[in-house]
């Protein structure tokens, strides 16, 4: 397997963690920020988070390096991460994978450039387009009509987009999707490179691809140019920590400059050390850990499918193209056949069974399994689903299936976002051009993005999602009764 990356550096090292441990021993007197001074100045916070934790909440300094310009321990940690992930270089990110995605896009496109991408991307991707002014060329993702979920991009659709937009600068792939669905990444990388375009990968849900056997190919192994990896999802690091990986074609210095445009100059050592320690754990034990997660997910799938009514889908979706591979560590369940929307099952699980899952949408729920799970909790989840079916099963007539709505892009997200605009009641917005986002969160995939035409089909979908209890976010009006539209955009 060519993608099995063999690290060359000593992955038992964790330079940032080691430097912090040394630093603690030195008992340096702090006359620098942060002002809580190892927690002494904020006893309530120290009591809550623990002395150990606040004592390493420190500032950049010579022995601890500086994330904006790393030359010692942070640089070593980044090189170790690159080695572990098989990348040319890896940047530690402290602004979430959102910042990794944005840096990836800002590094590869400028105002007016075209970028090819599927519409079911995370909001952070389209946010980046608002920032840089690039113009999206959407490839319709394939759709599974039974499940009502977007799949990956078909090869011929990517090829057509490249042919029709030869000047586009990059192709962005969502790999895997939230549901664990992968496109044919190697083929897409090849097509992009042949056309002189970069291939960028939003790999937020694929950290474990770098550390597992029988897993879908990772972005770096497939030859992609950049990838945003959510270490805090399957990688086990602290929330908000992330990695940006790059291939040999990219300039380390230029990407660093781009990152520094928006990244904090007071990067948290809690986040950075969590990346360092988690990378070490993944490199040393990742294969065993993720094999176990995969087994647990397979077990849960079998048990859930045995309940009846539910469909916990898996590898059988693989079709050689738009579902080129399936990430079996993901546990998604189609709920519509028991007469409940996914969001309803999500709410019942939390309200009545004290079980919090990742998200529920129109037809499906997703339970996030990871290295921290144990069989006994999995039994609770399966049993709760069995009990929900016993108590609530009803006819599924009247339940919508989620449809992929092919958007009409009227102007670039940046032009629409900054255009003269006004607020109108949602129901009076049909035909207008939207100047902001509307999405259910999670999963955070926009229903409407800036620059897209508002249709009655989209409004119906928003209304339905709202009535089922989806949490809608995005618009300036938090109540989501009004929406900002571009003045003069109406057809």
């Amino acid at each position, binding site marked *: 397997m060519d993608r099995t990356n063999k690290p060359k550096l000593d992955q038992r090292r964790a330079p940032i963690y080691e430097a912090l441990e040394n630093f603690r021993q030195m008992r340096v007197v702090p006359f620098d920020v942060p002002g809580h001074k190892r927690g002494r100045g904020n006893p309530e916070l120290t009591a809550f988070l623990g002395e150990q934790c606040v004592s390493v909440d420190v500032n950049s300094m010579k022995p601890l390096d500086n994330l904006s310009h790393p030359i010692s321990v942070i640089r070593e940690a980044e090189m170790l991460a690159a080695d572990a992930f098989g990348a040319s270089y890896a940047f530690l990110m402290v602004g979430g994978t959102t910042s990794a995605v944005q840096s990836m896009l800002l590094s590869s496109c400028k105002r007016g450039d075209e970028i090819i991408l599927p519409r079911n991307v995370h909001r952070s991707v389209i946010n980046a387009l608002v920032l840089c002014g690039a113009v999206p060329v959407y490839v319709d993702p394939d759709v599974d009509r039974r499940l009502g979920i977007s799949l990956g991009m078909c090869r011929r659709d990517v090829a057509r987009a490249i042919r029709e937009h030869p000047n586009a600068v990059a192709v962005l792939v969502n790999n895997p999707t939230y549901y664990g669905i992968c496109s044919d990444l190697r083929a897409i990388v090849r097509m992009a490179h042949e056309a002189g375009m970069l291939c960028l990968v939003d790999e937020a849900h694929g950290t474990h691809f770098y550390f597992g056997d029988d897993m879908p190919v990772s972005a770096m192994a497939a030859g992609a140019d950049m990838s945003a990896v959510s270490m805090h999802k399957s990688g086990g690091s602290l929330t908000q920590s992330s990695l940006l990986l790059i291939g040999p074609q990219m300039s380390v210095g230029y990407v660093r400059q781009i990152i520094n445009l928006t990244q904090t100059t007071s990067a948290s050592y809690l986040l950075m050390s969590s990346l360092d320690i988690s990378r070490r754990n993944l490199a040393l034990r990742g294969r065993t850990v993720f094999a176990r997660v995969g087994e647990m997910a397979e077990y849960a799938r079998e*048990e859930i499918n045995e*309940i009846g009514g539910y469909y916990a889908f898996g590898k059988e979706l693989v079709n050689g193209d738009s579902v080129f591979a399936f990430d079996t560590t993901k546990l998604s369940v189609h709920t519509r056949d028991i007469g*409940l929307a996914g969001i*309803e099952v999500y*709410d*019942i699980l939390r*309200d*009545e*069974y*004290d079980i919090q899952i990742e998200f529920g949408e129109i037809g499906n729920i997703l339970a996030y399994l990871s290295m921290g799970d144990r*069989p*006994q909790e999995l*039994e*609770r989840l*399966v*049993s*709760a689903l*069995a*009990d929900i079916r*016993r*108590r*609530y099963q009803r006819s599924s007539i009247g339940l919508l299936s989620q449809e992929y709505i092919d958007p009409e892009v009227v102007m670039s997200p940046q032009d629409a976002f900054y255009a003269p605009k006004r607020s109108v009641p949602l129901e009076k917005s049909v035909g207008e051009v939207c100047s902001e986002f509307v999405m259910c969160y999670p999963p955070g995939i926009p229903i409407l993005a800036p620059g897209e035409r508002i249709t009655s089909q989209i409004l119906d979908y928003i209304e339905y999602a709202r009535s089922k209890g989806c949490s809608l976010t995005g618009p300036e009006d938090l109540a989501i009764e009004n929406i900002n539209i571009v003045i003069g955009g109406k057809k």
Partner: protein
Amino acid sequence: MDLWFSEFHTPDVKHSIRVTRHLYSGRSDYQQIDVFDTPEFGRVLTLDGSVMLTERDEFIYDEMITHVPMAVHPNIRDVLVIGAGDGGVVKELTRYSQIRRIDLIEMDPQVIEVCRTYLPENASRLDDERVHIRFENALRSIRRSNGNYDLIIVDSTDPFGPGEGLFTREFYGNCFSALRPDGIMVNQQGSPFYRQDAEAMQRSHKRIYTTFPISRIYQAHIPTYAAGYWLFGFASKRYHPVDDLNAEKWSSLGLETRYYTPLLHVGSFYLPAFLENMLREVEQDNSQTVL
């Protein structure tokens, strides 16, 4: 030598028993298991440092969790016992000739091994031919049984350890499905006295109350459990624990008991005012997901 076993009943309350010998100490896949000899309570089994049973007072627990449902339901034939690896509950059940099958589900085989070795009196009836022991996760096995039982006895550890899954709504719901249309579920409901215990008791009572048409609490005095004051839950699809008590029939069986009597049966359902209030609080809270 001054050797004591201590258990924290709250962070600020400690219950100690003088120990003459520490007979066994071992760690299973699930928990820490210890056996002591003590002058006051005889042999003592602890799991994760909590007293599970003592030779001196186990009869109270085992009798109250067994005879109360047996004296109510007119014809219990198939019984499921969850937890109870020490064999005490099974020992009481096997005294009834009407019972034809007892399934015992215990997740931890090591508990049964230890009890067979160190508490042979209790564990002796585990070899009764009606008893079928399965070592597995109770949530999993109960999901798979549909309407096969007349009685389910949940003899769990406390809700803050490996037994947590046995205090959940999903577990009670699947118990409901596993019972015949006139079935009964009895469980140990913890203690209402100390705050943390009381809150756990309220949570699980609410879950049972919203799952079964009849759900009542009864009490007993058990010296080695927290506050010496213990509760049981009686949940049932048809029979009322007091109205449907058939004292004459039970008495005619001639079973000798040391704690349970049909008169105490009725009395154990009369609860102190503070506990009635606690139960009312959760019984009247009808916050369910509205679909």
